């Protein structure tokens, strides 16, 4: 995973509540064997018209937001299915940060695993940012300082889980971190196999 650096970018204001992962990545794209190239399927029903051409009414096709690396979303973004393809697709579209009032649990975790920073701010602040960026203005996200800076220089602070923040800032390989705990893991299995032997193949 690439270490996360402070990002200053345009942002797409995507103001819908309860956007589920079926909307983010329809099931027709789940047949892929790869993590790559899924941006084309992301938000398909919203981004494209029936004939396959870009939908001019979609925020994602608005030229004012071209090159945006920040997605401003409505509350409960990513509810429903656990498909990580939703996070892969958003990443492939070029987004590195999602800011919302709340995230569905599994989607939140999936974003983290792919180096996408998920910022939780009060709904009113998210709505203020959506207003800010409407004409293509840039905002900044600093994970080190845990701040979002508005175009008027005002700063919103956010909380972040220390473990995830550390991993994102340093681009750490989470499996590698866990494998360093092999000793504790061996000990856990030894004790559990004595206490609950039927979970270890004892008949």
């Amino acid at each position, binding site marked *: 995973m690439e270490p996360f650096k402070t990002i200053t970018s345009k942002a797409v204001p995507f103001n819908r509540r309860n956007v589920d992962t079926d909307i983010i990545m329809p099931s027709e794209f789940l047949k892929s064997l790869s993590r790559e190239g899924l941006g084309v399927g992301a938000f398909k029903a919203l981004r494209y018209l029936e004939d396959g051409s870009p939908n001019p009414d979609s925020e994602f096709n608005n030229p004012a937001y071209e090159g945006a690396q920040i997605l401003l979303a409505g509350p409960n973004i990513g509810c429903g299915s656990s*498909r*990580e393809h939703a*996070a892969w697709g958003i990443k492939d579209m070029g987004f590195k940060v999602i800011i919302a009032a709340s995230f569905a649990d599994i989607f939140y975790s999936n974003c983290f695993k792919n180096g996408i920073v998920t910022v939780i701010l009060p709904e009113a602040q998210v709505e203020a940012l959506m207003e800010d960026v409407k004409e293509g203005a840039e905002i900044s996200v600093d994970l080190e300082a845990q701040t979002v800076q508005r175009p008027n220089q005002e700063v919103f602070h956010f909380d972040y*889980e220390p473990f995830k923040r550390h991993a994102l800032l340093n681009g750490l390989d989470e499996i590698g971190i866990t494998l360093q705990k092999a000793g504790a893991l061996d000990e856990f299995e030894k004790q559990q196999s004595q206490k609950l032997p039927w979970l270890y193949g004892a*008949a």
Partner: protein
Amino acid sequence: MPHAKTLYEKIWDAHVVDPGDGETSLIYIDRHIIHEVTTPQAFEGLKLAGRKVRRPEAVIAVPDHNVPTKDRDKPIEDPQSAAQVAMLKEKCAEYGIEHIEMNDIRQGIVHVIGPEQGITQPGITLVCGDSHTATHGAFGALAFGIGTSEVEHCLATQTLQLKKSKTMKVEVVGEPGPWLTAKDIILAIIAHIGTSGGTGHVIEFFGPAITGLTMEGRMTLCNMAIEAGARAGLIAPDEKTFEYLQDKPRAPQGVHWNAAMAHWSTLKSDPDATFDKVAVVDVADIPPLVTWGTSPEDVAPITGTVPHPDDFANPSKQDAARKALDYLGLEAGMNIQDIKIDRAFIGSCTNSRIEDMRAAAVIARGRKVAPNVIEALVVPGSGLVKAQAEREGLDKIFTEAGFEWREPGCSMCLAMNADRVGPKERCASTSNRNFVGRQGPDARTHLMSPAMAAAAAIAGHLADVRDYPPIPPVQEAA
């Protein structure tokens, strides 16, 4: 005195490998079920990093999401689906993981076969790359869906780095009326607390209406805890749980059975344990429920009308309701029972167990699917459910009534195989999600119980199952 704990806290504490910073801990995972759709990239990641599967015997694989539900003797037509199914088998052989083949009688939906094989047990941690893993909480297991990176992490380490969830108590009060099933109860709960009501929480269900449910009903209930935003649902194990598990292939046997029962009997929230959030839902006197919108919280009684967007207090909810009615092609104020359907689907990890088959068959027996219904599918959750239903003659009841009796899999719930709802077609479905495009592009979904879906198929429109009393079987002449 040690502080009182909830069931969730007890299971969590028993699985901490490393407490970490106190917020994010390394948690041991006892059982891991995998399927063909959310694992290819995990295996690819293992290979690239040169890592092994830590405990292959704690993992079991079965294809379910995009397997066909008919013509199983022929190769899978869709090359991408075929590639995923083939890759699962190949990777399982490479890493020494048991794999249940598509044509094995034990094959079925991950959340049906886990309990059926006795893999799911009280007090264990169980994960699967599928959000409906919440289902297994019906046995008092801490079970939740994970993404593919977590699948890879769990294969490599048999653990996950997890942030401890908050706890939520949902107490269901009141005596359910006739035909008020587990599906109706969970829809009532989701309508009450909303699709994000359980976000960040693990829900434990309480109340006589919950303990009164069969294991199949409890699975239906916990299955849709995710639709209330909760990553997991829990019901404390009891005699019904033990009875269900006894003699299941992978359940503890002999002397271990008694030890396991003694351990399982301790798995309940302490009487004075406190929860971070509490909701009370009254199910007395509510009619069977259906959804009218594109979120599982959009619930209406079958005796009711389609709501008006202006009825909602919140402007963004009003906007969502307007979009939902437009998508579903419905008029505000119309009678729910005037909504005509094109298809019916009885199946999915929510409602494809033997009890669901029986409930639908009781309504279908002696009746015919309405002529305006293009297709009414019955898809059992596993080969074993299918065989049991056939022993009971349920397949004949369905086919005589004009339903199609299929092979097990996820099928029309998420339109990954050939079973799907066409654009602007409307489906009475026993699945779990009425999301935009879920059952196919532009498909329109109404969620309900199996008996209600059978009644809708017979009527040709959404219908009140209570108006379709069972017709007794015709007695053969002596």
